[in-house]
Structures are given as structure tokens and as C-alpha cells.
């Protein structure tokens, strides 16, 4: 029976025949470096792809070297060396390497031994001193297994970044056969990049613009002397649009896989690029094209321009014909503006006092502060006296909040008063309310009660300063408004001055029959 080249490490063993081995925190004998020997480059790429799915290649690339080695007996192999020193890292790499039928070793310098397995939980050490393995040159690597020692001579070094960039794309079938069938739209749900050949750019942008697809774009010159292609960035593109774009020759859809890399739809990069930023040095953007089998480097971060500037507009001053006008002004059902009860609390802007209590207003004026009183106005309506607070009082309490009479009125729109507890329905824009009511700049409108359907228009000349006239309130019969338009006539103004009226009652023929003088 041949002597084994390796012997298991005992528990607690600290001294090893192979220089560079040491015990990690778990008591496992590990070396400073990890060596993985790949027989073919496909296995190497497969290993990198599998590793990038689990871990970040950026960390691995920091200490990793890729070399091409020649076997002592002939044949080539690819050597991957990276930093070890941890049994966990060794086991992860060993697990991934075993998937691609490659062997992992640990050690330091030029001699590497098998890492621990299930039978030897503390790893292996050389059975004999390292000198017995054979002569090892400075460029040689010896991988020692239990029965055989493989010696490889390093003949070339590979740049891992260049390797990743030169990898060919692999076709990746679209789920369901169509982009639209995939719930995630093949990763294009939020954003899609579209590379459009120069001849199609103008028509395609116009088509997208008409479809109201939110887009931005930038012109790229992929080859010297070639007209600039258009790279579009589509936000939230519909699946139907993507399907159409995918079927157009000269149009390529790209899935952004990282902030600086995008892969063509239907194709897949062997490496998970999102975990391999170090593979894409600089601030360039990479477009991995599958069908063209190219990698396009866009210098600098692309500055996309809004799509509205990419579209060629054809402005038309021709007035729409009747057919178009009919389409532009469709007939819709109209509703009337009405009052509706609401619980919304608002600052009162006026108070409507019945004529029965009109005589009490004069006495209440003594309660109002001068600043409030001087800014009050009133209008005599058939329904009563409308006392208006100062408009735009700057947060001060107005007279309508102080007068404990009548019904409070609030502003549903600027200059449009409704009873407190009611609002205008439907809730159209406040300025539109004034337009619908046909109010001029200084005019106001008031809905005296919730039963009325029409507002009363109040002109600026009809509002009278309260402090000048309110003590003399009018009778309702005299302050009459014609129809819905308030007409504050001269006669009404005269009547508002609180003047008593003479009534000459009927005098009988014998009115002085018993009239006697003094004494």
C-alpha cells in the first residue's frame, strides 16, 4: 500500500510540516491562500458566475489572481488563487468549485494541500517534510492530494476584469415567450433602455411620444464615422410597447442590471454583474449586447435629455374642422351648483340678521372694537340685514363672530357666502365658482338660506359702512331687491335711515265735536 502524502491533523495540533499552515479559530489547519485548479475556462467562468450569485466578486477580486499553468506531464489548467486564512471561506469556495468539478487546496507559497473534509475535520498536513515533495521553482505550484502531488508551472496571468468583459453572452429564454407574459416584464417594469439604430430614431420617438410613454434619450456614436444611435430610457413602459419594440429590427431592449451595466433582453451575462462592480472600472456605462455580441462602452455617465425635446414637432395652425371640433368638445351631462350640509368649520365672514332683530344691531355696535367696527359693511336684503366682516382681516376676529344675532355666513369661495354648516356641491375650484356665478371683481354673492337655488348678487356700491348707517336699519319692505339682482335704490337708501312714517288715519266728520279749550 502506497504511503499517503497527507495525514489528518489531530485536534489541538499546532505544529505542521507544511510551512504556512496554522490553526484558525475553530482549530482547523488552514493556509494563507486558497488555490482552485480549473481544467477548462468554462469551469472557471462557471465558478465565477456561481460565486457572484452568492457573494460579491468585488471582495474576491481584491486578492484573486488568475493564472494559466502547465502540468508537469502536459496539459493546461487555470489557477485561481485568493486569500484564505478562514476555514469558512475555504469551505464556500470548495463547495462552489466542486460544482464545476474542480479541486480546492489551501496552503501558502507554492505548496498547497487539500482542505478539511468530513473525515478529517481538522484538515491535512504533509506526511513528510515539504522538501520530499520535490523541487519547486519560484513559478511552480504543487497541489498535494492524499495520493498524488500535481505540479504546475505558471506560464501566463489573466486579468479577471478583462476576462469578465470579454465573456460571451448567453441566451436566456423570455418567460412565457413574450415580455408581456412575464409579471416583471423581464426586469423592465420600472425602467428599460432601448438602443435604436440611427435610421429608426426619429420615427420611434414620435411613436413613443404619441403613446405617451415617459422617455428620455441620448445620442451615441457606437463606432467612429457612424451616425449616432439613440439610447432611450423608458420609465414604467407598458408591456405591450415593450413587445412591439422587441420585435423591431434595429431596436434592442436592455435590462439595467446595475447602475452602470445593462444586458440585452433575452440574453444573460455569465457573471452576475450587480455584484461585480469592480469588473466595470471607471465611470463608464456598459451595454452588453447579445445578438451583436458586443460590449458598448458609453463614456461617462449618460446625461439623458427629456423625450419632449427628441420629438420632431409638426405644429399646425389649421383650425380644427367640424369633425375634430366635435371630438374636442364632447357633450357631457351638466349638474347644478347647490348647497350641501358639511361639518367643515370655517371662520364666519358675515351674519344675516332677520328684520325682527334688526333694531338690536344698533345697540350691539357699542360692543364692537373700533378696528372691527370701522371695517364692517352691511347690505339690506329682503331676507334681513347682512353684516359683512372685514375681508382679509389677517386673522383678526371679525364683527360677524362677535354679533350674537342672526345666522352666520361663511365664504365657500372668495366673495361667495353660504350659511354656516353648508358648502357648495360639487366642490369646484373657488375661482371657478365666481366665474360660474358671473361675479365681477368687487361683486359678492350670497345664498341667504339652504333652500334657495340662486345666489343674490351684491355689488360694491350696495355695501354700506356699518358704523355710518347700521344704527338706522330699514324695514324689509323698502330694501327690496329686484329678482336676483340687488338694487339698492335711492328710495331704499332713504328708508334705511330709520325714519318713522306718518299715517293719516281716517278722520270722522265730528272729530272736533267735543273739543274744548282750556278751562
Amino acid at each position, binding site marked *: 500500500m502506497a504511503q499517503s502524502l497527507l495525514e489528518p491533523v489531530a485536534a489541538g495540533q499546532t505544529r505542521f510540516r507544511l510551512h504556512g499552515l496554522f490553526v484558525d479559530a475553530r482549530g482547523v489547519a488552514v493556509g494563507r491562500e486558497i488555490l482552485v485548479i480549473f481544467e477548462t475556462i468554462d469551469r472557471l467562468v462557471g465558478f465565477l458566475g456561481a460565486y457572484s450569485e452568492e457573494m460579491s466578486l468585488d471582495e474576491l477580486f481584491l486578492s484573486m489572481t488568475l493564472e494559466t499553468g502547465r502540468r508537469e506531464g502536459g496539459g493546461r489548467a487555470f489557477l485561481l488563487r485568493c486569500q484564505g486564512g478562514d476555514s469558512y471561506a475555504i469551505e464556500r469556495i470548495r463547495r462552489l468549485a466542486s460544482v464545476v468539478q474542480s479541486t480546492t487546496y489551501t496552503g501558502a507559497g507554492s505548496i498547497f494541500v487539500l482542505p478539511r473534509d468530513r473525515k478529517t475535520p481538522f484538515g491535512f498536513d504533509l506526511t513528510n517534510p515539504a522538501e520530499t515533495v520535490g523541487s519547486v521553482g519560484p513559478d511552480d505550484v504543487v497541489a498535494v492530494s492524499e495520493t498524488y502531488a500535481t505540479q504546475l508551472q505558471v506560464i501566463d496571468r489573466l486579468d479577471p476584469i478583462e476576462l469578465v468583459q470579454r465573456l460571451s453572452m448567453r441566451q436566456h429564454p423570455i418567460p412565457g415567450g413574450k415580455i408581456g407574459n412575464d409579471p416583471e416584464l423581464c426586469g423592465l417594469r420600472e425602467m428599460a433602455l432601448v438602443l435604436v439604430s440611427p435610421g429608426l430614431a426619429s420615427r420611434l420617438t414620435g411613436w413613443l411620444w404619441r403613446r405617451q410613454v415617459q422617455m428620455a434619450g441620448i445620442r451615441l456614436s457606437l463606432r467612429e464615422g457612424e451616425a449616432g444611435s439613440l439610447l432611450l430610457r423608458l420609465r414604467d413602459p407598458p408591456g405591450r410597447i415593450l413587445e412591439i419594440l422587441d420585435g423591431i429590427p434595429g431596436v434592442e431592449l436592455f435590462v439595467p442590471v446595475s447602475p452602470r451595466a445593462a444586458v440585452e433582453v433575452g440574453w444573460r451575462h455569465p457573471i452576475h454583474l450587480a455584484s461585480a462592480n469592480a469588473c466595470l472600472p471607471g465611470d463608464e456605462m456598459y451595454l452588453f449586447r447579445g445578438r451583436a455580441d458586443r460590449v458598448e462602452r458609453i463614456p461617462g455617465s449618460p446625461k439623458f435629455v427629456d423625450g419632449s425635446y427628441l420629438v420632431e414637432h409638426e405644429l399646425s395652425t389649421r383650425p380644427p374642422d367640424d369633425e375634430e371640433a366635435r371630438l374636442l368638445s364632447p357633450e357631457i351631462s351638466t349638474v347644478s351648483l347647490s348647497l350641501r350640509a358639511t361639518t367643515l368649520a370655517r371662520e364666519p365672514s358675515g351674519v344675516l340678521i332677520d328684520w325682527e332683530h334688526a333694531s338690536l344691531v344698533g345697540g350691539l355696535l357699542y360692543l364692537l372694537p373700533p378696528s372691527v367696527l370701522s371695517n364692517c359693511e352691511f347690505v339690506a336684503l329682503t331676507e334681513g340685514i347682512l353684516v359683512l366682516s372685514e375681508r382679509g382681516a389677517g386673522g383678526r376676529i371679525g364683527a360677524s363672530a362677535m354679533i350674537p344675532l342672526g345666522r352666520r355666513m361663511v365664504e365657500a369661495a372668495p366673495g361667495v357666502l353660504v350659511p354656516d354648516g353648508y358648502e357648495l356641491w360639487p366642490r369646484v375650484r373657488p375661482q371657478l365658482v365666481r366665474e360660474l356665478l358671473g361675479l365681477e371683481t368687487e361683486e359678492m354673492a350670497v345664498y341667504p338660506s339652504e333652500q334657495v337655488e340662486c345666489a343674490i348678487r351684491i355689488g360694491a356700491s350696495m355695501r354700506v359702512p356699518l358704523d355710518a348707517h347700521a344704527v338706522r336699519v330699514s324695514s324689509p319692505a323698502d330694501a327690496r331687491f329686484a329678482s336676483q339682482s340687488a338694487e339698492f335704490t335711492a328710495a331704499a337708501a332713504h328708508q334705511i335711515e330709520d*325714519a318713522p312714517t*306718518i*299715517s293719516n288715519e281716517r278722520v270722522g266728520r265730528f272729530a*272736533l265735536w267735543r273739543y274744548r279749550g*282750556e278751562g
Partner: protein
Amino acid sequence: MGASLNGFLDDFVLPLLGGSRSTVRLKSPLSYADLANFQDDAGSLTRDDVQYARVRCGRRRVERPLLPDIDTFELVFWMGLHNLLFFDHPQLGQVWASDAKWRLVEATTASFLDRAQPESPAQVVARDLAMEGVMRLVRVDQIVETREAEVRYFGQPAPRRIGLFDSVAYLQREDTVNWIDFRHSSPTGRLLHRAFRASPLTALIHADRARGRASLRNVASLLAEPAYARAVVYAWAGSEDWDLIGAAVLERLLEDLGLGIGSEHGPPSSVAASAEEPEAPPSVTVAAGVDQLALDSEDTDPAPLVAALIHLHLLKVLEMKTRAGFGAPSSSPAWKLFFGLPLLLETLAPILGDPGIQVLGAAMEARWTEYRSFVRGIISRDELRWLRDTFAPALTQGNRS
């Protein structure tokens, strides 16, 4: 009209004082017998609603009116005003009564009004309450127009029988008139002088429309109260004819001082002015041709009145409306003398005090100076000299002829 005091208060006094939506109802004239009945029921005069109406009416002038308790004289004044208004009743011709009976009614009314002459400033204020109500009275006349004529029903509804004749085309409309400004019957015109004399404060405030010559004694002492002085001046300033009011007041004051226009010590240009322009301003013609009663001017201190007149100028300069008054200037001597009063400010300062123009700011002071230079062109040099040499000493020394 009921014969009871409560009925009288409800139908006449309260509507007259209360104002809003009230109607003064006139049925028949009141006599001494009614006064006796009222006096028997004098307790009704202390009714709360009457007191409230008086206070509220008084607050139209000042915030805290100087009001006495209701006495018989105020009641008599109310009765006089009632009869005064009754003489404008359109159906008096239908009453079967002799002329002597009507003269008795007028004499009774005149007696009522004369008895109510105020003796104190508080009574002046009390009279003003009701008289101001008369000044504000309006009457809604129904006017029926046909092709042939126009019939006015004074404060009465038009007869319903008009509408019975379809063949008669007519048009019915309303006309609201101010009672005091409308034409009056002869007895009413005569009695109005006495009513104004019984209410001198009303006569002073409405000097351009008042008739008769009221006593200035109690009014002048009332104007010593700043609140009433301010109320009077502001009432003047609120009138469009503030300059005519000022001229009428000044003319009345000059007559009280014995310096009346045309008198021996009167202003120098009065004779010439009256010769050139026989028409006196309409507002002051009423002073002439009226039965004159003895004026209680012995104790009158006219200084507050003059101060009020000068303050009226100041207010108008503050309002910057003084130029508007010059649109239709009057050549009446009193009107010119009225505009000469601001030039006496320094002369009368010892008795009237300083109006405090400097306090109002440099801009106001400049406007006041400009105004004084402007009115200097209205009054002649002789008139100004007369104001300084005769009128001002009469005020300062109480020199009355």
C-alpha cells in the same frame, strides 16, 4: 287715537322716538281735556319702553345723553307736536267744525308748544328727542294718475274704489317724502316756528331748515359740554349745506349780540350787500317775518357757538372738502362773515382756546394756512376789520347792545 295716555304713547310717542318700522298714527287733535286725562295717568310716563326709546333716541346724538325724567312739559310738547302734525291731515276739510273751532285747536297747540320751552340744558336735550323725530318723519304718499289729473293721497292708501272702474285707465305709484321738507298747511307753518323755538338744539343743528328763532341760552351752555359740541359740529359737517348752516347760525348769533346785519353796529357791507342782492340766502330768510318772541339772551355766552363754527371750518379742512363749498358761493353778508371766522382765531384764542392744529401734523397745518389765505379772498377788508374791532370784543367783553 285713544284718549288714554298709554294709547297716546303707543300710537304717537313711541313710533316718533323709536324709529324703525314705526308708524305715527294721527286721528284727532288733542285738547286740554286730554291733557287732564293724561295727567291723571301720569304713572304711565315711567314705562320702560318709553324710557328705553328716549335713551336710544338720545344716543343718536351722544353716547351718554343728558336726559331728565319725563315731566308734564315734555308730555305737553309731545301733544303739541301731535297737533302740529295733525294740521297737515288731508281730511281736515271734511270735518264739520267752524273756523273758530279750528282757531281754538291752533291756539291750544301753540299753547302746548310754548309751555314746553326748555329751562335747562337737560330739557333742551329732551325736546330734541321728539323734534328730531319730526325732522326725520317720512310720509308715503299714494299717487294716482289718470289721463286728466293726478291725485295725491297724503300718507293714506288710495281708495279701493279706483280699481272698480275698468274704463278708467290709471297709474298708481308711491312717493316717499320727508315731512319737514314738504309743503305744509298754514297752521302747521305757523306752529313750526314755535316747535323749533321749544327745541333749540334741533333748530341749531338744522339751522338751514329750522323756522323761528330759538333761544340760544341753553343751547350755548349745552355746547360747553364737549360731547354735544362735537355732536352738533359733526351734524353740521355732515350736511351738504354746511356753509349755509354756519351762515344762518352766525346771523342769529349776531342778532343776539345786537350786531345784526343792517343794524347800527352791524357789519359794514350789509347795507351795500342787501342793496345789490335783495335776495337773502333761502336758509336765512325764515328769520324775517316771523312773530318774534322774547329771546332769553341775557345769560347767553356765545363763545361755545363761535368755537363750534370755527371747529366746523377745521373739520372741513380735515375732510379736504372745503373747495366743494365754494362751488356756488353766496354773497350774503352772513355767509362772508362765516368764512371770516377762521381769521379771528388768534384774536379769540384767549376765550376759545387753541384748537390744536399743530397736533394734527405739519400737513394739516399747511392746509389750514392755505385755507385761511383762501378765505381771506372771500371776506372784504372792511368786514374783516369789523370782525376784529367789533365782533371779537363783543365776544370777549360780553358787549351786547
